[in-house]
């Protein structure tokens, strides 16, 4: 049958296939229906024949919402406007409005359906139609033609995000080159208008000629026919070639948050939302990728099937967009799910999701757990044993809050957060090779922390830093100004949470960052000039646009002007001061607050809500997107006050939860049902060991009282710190501290763990000479190292072991070694 090209084939194809029915929920579910809703809500369809699938979702008393579409008895109030067609879809017929009603389990739900332009044929769009096939069939994945250089001389854009380029390479031909706009090979069109069936675009994917990618569709299949028809019609670009054309603005996956029970199935609907307010059902045109196939599977028609409890991301690619959807599979409902009280809005979000997942949060951390945890997290320091005794003995109901306030006001807080900010602001010596330059940069950080300077101000000060100002030293690498593309890649990652460095050389293969966007931002750094005359002068950096080397786009070879991400150019009057303008834009950008919220979360929980912490992308969904948004809003409203943010987090019940899991939440790593151990940073661990052993490590040339968190990593060599994975700050921190062989060796043979502990004046020496009893020694050391009293069983066993030592010193030595080598010591938990 000849398929009329100008009628949208999308809807037609969708109408031809029957959706598989989810299993009959009535038979399997013991709970009762609480409410019913219909999705999508209030769609507007354009053109007669356009069809959209719908979902009827029933919420049950067991908290799970289930897909009951197959049993929902749908009806439309005005059959002239639209009717329920084959496969349970709503098919548009004539202009007007109608109501779709569904019934199930004694409940009714409804939504309005509007139809416009029913008499006009759906205009053709290469981007949607052909681009859709290229995405669905996997032609444009980054392994194949969507890779950086394409495949076999054909380059397509990932997810068909650049339809004009795709059109060019298919219709005109040419070979993509990374570093130039010229074609790198024979200009070979992939279509043959004179003999359409001989188009490579058809011959290759149907394997009529050899094709490295294998068969993507068969000759005569609907996709094949569609492409053939397109070539026969002269291969038009269609609608989106004009400015006023209707575009796909976004893609949404319904029903949104998807939680399945162990035997559950959920039909997903993928809706393309167009710029004219209408929607299109692209469910069968989308490609689905599941990140953890053990948790759930999704087939080519968007039907999700639960496999085992857990959470997975499903990445949906359609119509030039990629979005991801979390799919969770819950374990059996917990009988008598307890009521858990929130301390602040963080808990509201965390607890609500735990409830939906049928995961019961653990109880509160003991005072001792909380004390050690919050001292390390806020001040990077173990609580002294006297404080431990005090805190554990205190009956003050507000003691935790008072402790938090005391820590926030402590000098150790300033030191610790100077260290933590130093890690991400890359405070190190190599950049300048001059001690004074290093010092003023470090001092600026310390002053900012001590004054609780708002974070947006800190960031603006550094981005726009000039002259002799401390933060301007950041721009130097070995006394030369760093290059704009490197600066912008790092800053975007650090402050906006996005990794756009791929777009330096080509359009980002997975996300929609373009090379032009990257270089437009890089150009803001293109005016920096170092005013010094000779190697002996002080470095002074300012913006002098006329004098600076131009920023050249590596592909077009043209000079790039500063442009914000949305393409707006920097205003003429602002061009004298590009970095100040960039700084304002960065700190006002919505990504800024959410990245700070995410980073703060990672600081206190060991994992971001988006993880890795600076890798927000459509294919890396947040575990709690609403919480992140709420925190971002809160941060903005409180002027980016870091102490406020930290207090908010550590005051939450979520932070104060125990580390002991229960049956329902054992193994949970992404929902904060219980606190997960987090390795101490190398410097914090070294300082903690020094506290317990009473022997300071000599930090290079620094005074003996110096702590490891004070030093610049490239100023002081330290085997211990290297073994424990300290960041060298030549790049942004990448890896979290991980156990390794060198650490293990060090724990057995390293001086920190052996001979150093025996130093005169150290704790072992003092304890051995003072004649303290075993029990007293055990208690003192437990309080110092672990911030808790030892249990009777521990005392018994350790006492016995100590008594068989050959000397007092050895007994205490062994005990101390065990304590500082234990996981309970080296981790915050």
């Amino acid at each position, binding site marked *: 049958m000849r398929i009329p090209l100008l009628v949208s084939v999308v809807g037609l194809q969708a109408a031809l296939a029957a959706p598989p029915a989810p299993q009959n929920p009535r038979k399997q579910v013991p709970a009762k229906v609480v409410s019913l809703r219909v999705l999508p809500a209030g769609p507007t369809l354009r053109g007669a024949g356009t069809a959209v699938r719908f979902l009827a979702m029933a919420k049950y008393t067991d908290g799970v919402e289930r897909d009951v579409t197959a049993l929902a008895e749908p009806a439309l109030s005005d059959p002239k406007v639209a009717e329920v067609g084959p496969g349970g879809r709503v098919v548009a017929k004539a202009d007007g409005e109608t109501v779709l009603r569904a019934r199930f389990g004694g409940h009714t739900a409804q939504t309005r359906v509007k139809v416009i332009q029913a008499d006009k044929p759906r205009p053709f769009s290469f981007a949607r139609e052909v681009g859709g096939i290229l995405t669905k069939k996997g032609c444009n994945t980054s392994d194949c033609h969507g890779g950086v250089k394409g495949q076999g001389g054909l380059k397509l854009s990932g997810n068909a995000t650049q339809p004009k380029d795709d059109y060019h390479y298919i219709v005109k031909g040419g070979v993509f080159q990374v570093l130039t706009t010229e074609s790198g090979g024979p200009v070979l069109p992939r279509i043959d208008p004179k003999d359409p069936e001989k188009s490579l675009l058809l011959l290759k994917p149907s394997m009529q000629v050899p094709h490295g990618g294998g068969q993507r569709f068969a000759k005569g299949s609907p996709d094949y026919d569609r492409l053939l028809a397109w070539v026969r019609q002269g291969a038009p670009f269609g609608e989106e070639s004009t400015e006023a054309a209707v575009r796909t603005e976004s893609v949404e996956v319904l029903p949104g948050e998807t939680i399945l029970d162990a035997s559950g199935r959920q039909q997903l609907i993928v809706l393309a939302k167009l710029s004219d307010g209408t929607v299109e059902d692209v469910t069968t045109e989308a490609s689905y990728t599941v990140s953890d196939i053990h*948790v759930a599977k999704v087939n080519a028609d968007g039907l999700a099937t639960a496999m085992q409890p857990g959470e997975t991301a499903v990445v949906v690619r359609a119509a030039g967009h990629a979005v991801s959807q979390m799919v969770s599979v819950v374990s059996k409902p917990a009988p008598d799910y307890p009521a858990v009280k929130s301390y602040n809005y963080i808990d509201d979000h965390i607890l609500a999701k735990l409830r939906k997942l049928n995961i019961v949060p653990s109880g509160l951390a003991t005072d001792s757990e909380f004390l050690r945890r919050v001292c390390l997290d806020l001040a990077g320091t173990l609580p002294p044993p006297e404080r431990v005794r005090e805190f554990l003995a205190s009956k003050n109901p507000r003691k935790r809050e008072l402790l938090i306030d005391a820590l926030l006001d402590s000098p150790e807080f300033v030191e610790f957060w100077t260290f933590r900010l130093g890690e991400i602001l890359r405070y190190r010596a190599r950049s300048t090779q001059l001690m004074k330059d290093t010092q003023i940069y470090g001092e600026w950080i310390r002053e900012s922390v001590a004054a609780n300077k708002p974070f947006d101000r800190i960031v603006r000060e550094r981005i726009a830093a000039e002259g002799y100002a401390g933060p301007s030293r950041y721009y130097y690498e070995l006394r030369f100004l760093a290059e704009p593309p490197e600066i912008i890649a790092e800053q975007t990652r650090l402050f906006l949470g996005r990794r756009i460095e791929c777009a330096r050389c080509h359009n980002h293969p997975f996300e929609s960052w373009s090379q032009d966007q990257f270089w437009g931002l890089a150009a803001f750094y293109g005016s920096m000039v170092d005013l010094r005359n000779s190697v002996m002068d002080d470095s002074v950096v300012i913006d002098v646009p006329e004098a600076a080397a131009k920023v050249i786009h590596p592909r077009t070879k043209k000079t790039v002007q500063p442009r914000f991400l949305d393409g707006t150019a920097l205003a003429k009057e602002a061009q004298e001061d590009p970095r100040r303008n960039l700084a304002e834009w960065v700190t006002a950008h919505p990504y800024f607050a959410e990245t700070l919220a995410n980073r703060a979360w990672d600081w206190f929980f060991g994992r971001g809500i988006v993880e890795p912490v600076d890798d927000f992308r459509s294919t890396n969904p947040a575990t709690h997107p609403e919480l992140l948004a709420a925190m971002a809003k809160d941060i903005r409203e409180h002027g980016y006050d870091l102490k406020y943010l930290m207090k908010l987090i550590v005051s939450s019940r979520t932070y104060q939860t125990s580390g002991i899991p229960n049956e329902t939440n054992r193994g949970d790593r992404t929902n904060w049902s219980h606190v997960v151990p987090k390795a101490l940073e190398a410097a914090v661990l070294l300082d903690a060991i020094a506290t317990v052993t009473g022997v300071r490590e000599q930090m290079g040339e620094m005074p003996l009282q110096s702590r490891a968190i004070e030093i610049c990593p490239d100023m002081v060599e330290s085997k211990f710190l290297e073994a424990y994975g300290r960041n060298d700050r030549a790049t942004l921190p990448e890896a979290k501290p991980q156990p390794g062989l060198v650490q293990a060796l060090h724990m057995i043979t390293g001086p920190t763990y052996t001979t150093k502990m025996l130093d005169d004046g150290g704790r072992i020496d003092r304890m051995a000479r003072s004649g303290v009893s075993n029990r007293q020694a055990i208690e003192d050391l437990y309080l110092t190292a672990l911030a808790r009293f030892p249990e009777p069983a521990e005392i018994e066993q350790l006492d016995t072991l100590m008594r068989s030592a050959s000397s007092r010193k050895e007994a205490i030595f062994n005990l101390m070694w065990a304590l500082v080598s234990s*996981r309970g010591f080296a981790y915050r938990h």
Partner: protein
Amino acid sequence: MNETRYWHRRNFLRVGGLSYLGMSLPQYLRAAAAKEAAGVATAGKAQACILVWLSGGPPQMDTWDPKPNSNFKTISTNTAGIQISELFPRVAKLMDRLSIIRSMHTEENNHPEGTYYGMTGHRPNPTMRFPSFGSIIGKELGSRHDVPPYVVTPPQSYPHSYNAGFIGPQYDPLVVPDPNQEDFKIPDLTLPKSLTPELIETRQAFLRVVDKRIRDKEEFAEFSNMDAYQEQALRMILAPNVRKAFDLTLEPPKDREAYGRSRFGQSMLLARRLVEAGCRFVTAEGYEHSEWDTHFKNDEILRRDLAPKLDQALSVLVNDLDQRGLLKTTVVVVMGEFGRTPNINPEGGRDHWANCWSLLIGGGGIRGGCVVGSSDAAAGYVATRMVTQGDLFATIYKALGIDPAKIYHAPGGRPVYIANSIGDKRGTPVQELL
């Protein structure tokens, strides 16, 4: 779309993915165990690689690519048609087993960047830490006989160039101190005198008591991984073969003399012992920081200090490996981070020059007696057959049985070739040498 294929090749999803149970046993230990179980041989002929690192950058025209602008004469070697600088009469007798690449072209002209480039094939970048090829080889081949697979001796300039970058600190090298010292020992592998195996066991007993409470809380992958590393560490410390490999006092004094009683000579000797014991990649440096960096008095320093040590130690090393049957399984590479300028500067020195330089390579199935590529009349620019750092890596990987086209995925999902060449292209093995 085939989901399985997607899952395996699109690692970036795993980064953002949510595996229910957290990470599993370190791949490193599993690979090591598997390799041990499968027998020692790798897929290629070579089992190990020794990198003789000439820190500072040797002058190509005064060493392996003699040209009229050198003040030294040329001498023949034991391979017809190959001539090298008169400064290396003993190396001249190795030319049947070693080959020369005269058309190396790299992109960094200063020491820190050049060293990083020489180890990783990438230019330094503040958003990404690339792994050194020693880390990659250690990761791909795994440990043999509990010997640390990747050793750097002695501690180097720009140590982070030698590290594992984004593939994880567990692939960082074991760095050992100056082997020429009287009391040379590896601190990490040496039990302090007071610490006996019995005491170690006692301490483990203390540790079990102290750690019980947190271990009982929950199975946490990082804790059990540390246990695995502890076991391996103990084996390394207590196993006699590892201690012996590092114990230079076991070497007959005349052999120690033969290599030269210098930091460089003893590093070469240690490299041989380590390879013998099962190490996969050893960096034998020993020259002082940037000692080859002859900005002043190039000729004098070469003749007096630099060349004699190299000439002696390299010839002893190659012959020693050969006699022990190790040369056919050990790739030997002799290079610096770049070459030196064709012109001599006013102080009688030569400055940095990455455009065209030379290196020596042989052993491990790599053909000897070849010259790859050529330079112009002043050894300033590549004339024929350019070879990049990525090509060099690809050649070494191929010899070791590692797929030279292999790709790692960096954080963020970016695919990175293990043999990264100029312009992000993939390095290709130098077929003339294989």
